[in-house]
Structure formats: structure tokens, C-alpha cells
């Protein structure tokens, strides 16, 4: 969706300012929000794409005003509400959920959440191929940002099949599951994306799934 999260190429935010000796957290609650997000993920009620969509559907004026942990908090609250976790009479036990315990933290983090999956078909593109990205504007989750739609680039890496976020984020709409698709790194010329006044030496790379390409 073309929400507040789709920031690539927006202007007017001012310079990037680095905070000197930046602490990990600027308030205790920020650390707690990190911990809550990491601790509730393993309940298995949502995946990373559902989580991202919960954050990007925050109205743009809020998304752009919130600090990043405020965005995470608002997203987490949505996921919790949508799954009725705090409804009266509902508990982890009634839901059949198992909480992450201290002794499983290290192994859970070390395992992570790999996104590669067995391919359902052969890759249609190879390194060196030119592709053109589709022009679409779904209100649902996508990882093809606006600034890369309708542009031509060159495939430079083939990653194998990965979970397709546009489907994985929307179990509520359709039952395509993770629908793994071939993932490629595509190299775009800055002059193609932004116009001829850009430095002809410069490029942008992005990781894009096969369904994002004009076939």
C-alpha cells in the first residue's frame, strides 16, 4: 500500500541527523516494546508480513509523527486486538498458546525466521536479464515501493524462492499461504528511476519477487 511507510523518494524531511553517543533506548518503555514484540512473535499468531502491514496501516500523519518504537507499539496493539488476546476470559491457555521462556530465548533468536522455501516452479529469470517492474497500487501489503514501479532494471542476484509477502500478509483475504516466489536482486540506474539529472554512475538495488515483474 502507498502508506506513510513508503518513503523512498519523498522530500522535505530535512537532513539526516546522527545523534552522538546514541543510547540503545531513549526511554525504558522503548526497551519494553522491543521485548514485547520479540516475545509475542513466537506465539505464532502473525508472521513478519502481517506485522509490517499492521504498522504501515497506521495513518500517514501518525506514522510520520511517531517515533519508531511508537510505530511498533501501535502495530503490536493492533495485532493483539485483532487476535482478541486481551478479551475478557481469554488467556494463552484457552487459546492453546505456549509462551517463550527464558531458556528458549537464545535458540529462538539463533533460529530466526528464514524466508527461503522450496521453489514451486523453475526461475523465469537469470542474472543479466532485463526486467520491467509492474505498475500496480494495491491497498494491501506489497514490498514493491512506489519509486520502483514501472521501471526497468537488471537481475544481479537470484536468491531462490522466498515467502511472498503480498500473499503472506493477507491470510484474512485469501488462502494462498506463503506462496513462495523467486526472489531476485535487481539493479536500477538512478537516472532511470529519478530522471536524467541524477549522477549516471549511481544505482539502486532492491530485492523483488517474480510476480513484481511484467511477464
Amino acid at each position, binding site marked *: 500500500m502507498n502508506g506513510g*511507510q513508503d*518513503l*523512498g*523518494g*519523498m*522530500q522535505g*524531511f530535512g*537532513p*539526516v*541527523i*546522527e545523534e552522538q553517543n*546514541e543510547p540503545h533506548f531513549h*526511554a525504558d*518503555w522503548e*526497551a*519494553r516494546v*522491543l*521485548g*514485547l514484540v*520479540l516475545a*509475542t512473535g513466537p*506465539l505464532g499468531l502473525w508472521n513478519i508480513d502481517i506485522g*509490517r502491514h499492521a504498522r504501515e496501516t*497506521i495513518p500517514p500523519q*501518525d506514522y510520520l509523527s*511517531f517515533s*519508531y518504537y*511508537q510505530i511498533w507499539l*501501535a502495530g503490536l*496493539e*493492533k495485532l*493483539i486486538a485483532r487476535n482478541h*488476546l486481551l478479551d475478557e476470559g481469554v488467556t494463552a*491457555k484457552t487459546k492453546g498458546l505456549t*509462551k*517463550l*521462556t*527464558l531458556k528458549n*530465548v537464545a535458540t*529462538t*533468536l*539463533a*533460529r*530466526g*525466521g*528464514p524466508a527461503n522455501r522450496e521453489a514451486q516452479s523453475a526461475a523465469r529469470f537469470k542474472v543479466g536479464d532485463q526486467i520491467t517492474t509492474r505498475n500496480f497500487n494495491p491497498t494491501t501489503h506489497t*514490498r514493491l*515501493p512506489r519509486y*520502483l514501479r514501472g521501471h526497468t532494471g537488471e537481475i544481479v542476484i537470484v536468491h531462490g524462492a522466498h515467502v511472498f509477502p503480498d500473499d503472506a500478509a493477507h491470510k484474512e483475504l485469501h488462502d494462498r499461504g506463503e506462496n513462495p516466489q523467486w*526472489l531476485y*536482486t535487481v539493479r536500477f540506474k538512478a537516472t532511470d528511476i*529519478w530522471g536524467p539529472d541524477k549522477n549516471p*554512475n*549511481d*544505482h*539502486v*538495488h*532492491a*530485492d*523483488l519477487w517474480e510476480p513484481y515483474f511484467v511477464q
Partner: protein
Amino acid sequence: MSSKPHDHSHGHSHDHSHEHGEFSDLSDTELRVRTLETLLTEKGYIDTDAVNELIDTYETKVGPRNGAAVVARAWGDAEYRTRLLTNATAAIAELDYKGRQGEHMIAVENTDTVHNMVVCTLCSCYPWPVLGLPPIWYKSAPYRSKVVIDPRGVLEDFGVEISADKEITVWDSTAEVRYLVIPQRPSGTDGWSEEKLAKLVTRNSMIGTGYALNPDQLVGEVQA
């Protein structure tokens, strides 16, 4: 003197109303978080010790010193460098850095002709096992919006000079692949140990908003 008659208090007004996400000040946010944690704990979804350990992991154990060790080894060991550039996930796992937000790693190398910069325009994707949690600026609208359209302007914001005929290549982390920049090894470091080389490798140099330190910058420099 400015004649603007308004103050700079933290908070501003809304004429329009909307239904979620609003709160009047930080103490409200704190209260929201505390209540949420209490309820989640009471209902059995989370364990406080586990939450504490998760926070502690990223506050004290995992950070850019991991990435610096990877880079230093690549600088000093040509075969490791090749493995890192060929299969970064496996090469990084050799140093026991792996897992969440580092499941699919790619290392990109700065050279005399190419300078790499990493961003996640759509959220805050960042290679946690090697760099820890991202700094605020990495997650901020100014960086995410600007680095893909004006990477040279971003380098200027960081006080980094770069020649117009050097290629700048930006990697937008739109999938679950995470990028680590291998900065150029500074001159005057021949024969240095990995430990000593690692001290030259700043966090920003592994994102692409800085260079590795020169030996003469090392003394007294706080390692970010």
C-alpha cells in the same frame, strides 16, 4: 530576531480527530506499554524473564562489534573474504553470528570505484546479528526517503566526501535479505591483527554512511 510568537513545546494540536494511536505525552506511552505488558503477562502470553533476556541480548550482547570482527577477518584473510562475498550467511556463521534478521546475508564490498549504502525504505530492516539494533537515523524518515534519491546528499549530511565519478550503489532491503557493507581497508594497516583492524570498523562504515577509521583517527576515538 524572530518574531514568531509560538513556542516549541512537545506536542501539537489536531483539528481533525482519528481513532487510534494518539496519546498526549511520553508518560501516557509509558502507561500504555506497562499496562500491555502486565496484561500479556497475567494472561500467560509472555514471560518477564524472557522479555528481559530479549532486551538484554540486544542492549549488551549483539552489536556492531560483531560486524567489525567479520570485516576485520575479511580484510586480513583473503579466503575468508571470498567466502564472505560468495555466501555471507555461512561465512558470518563461522564467527557464530546468525539468526533473527540475519537469516539471509549478503556482503557488499566498497572499492576504489564503488561505494555501497544500505537502507530499508519501507520499514527498518537491518542485519541484527552483525550490527545489533539500528540507530534512530537509520529508521527515520529523512534517511529512508533521501538515501535512494539523493545518496550524495546523505553522505554530505554525515560529513563524508565522495568523488562524483565514484559509483554510489544503494541497497534497499525490500525482502528478508540483509546487507553488510565491507568498507575499504585503510592504508597504513599492513600486518595489523584482526583485533586491531576491528577497531577501525565503525558501525556507519558497515551501513555505508561512513568510512573505516584511519589509523591516526583511532586514538581517543569512541567506537560507534
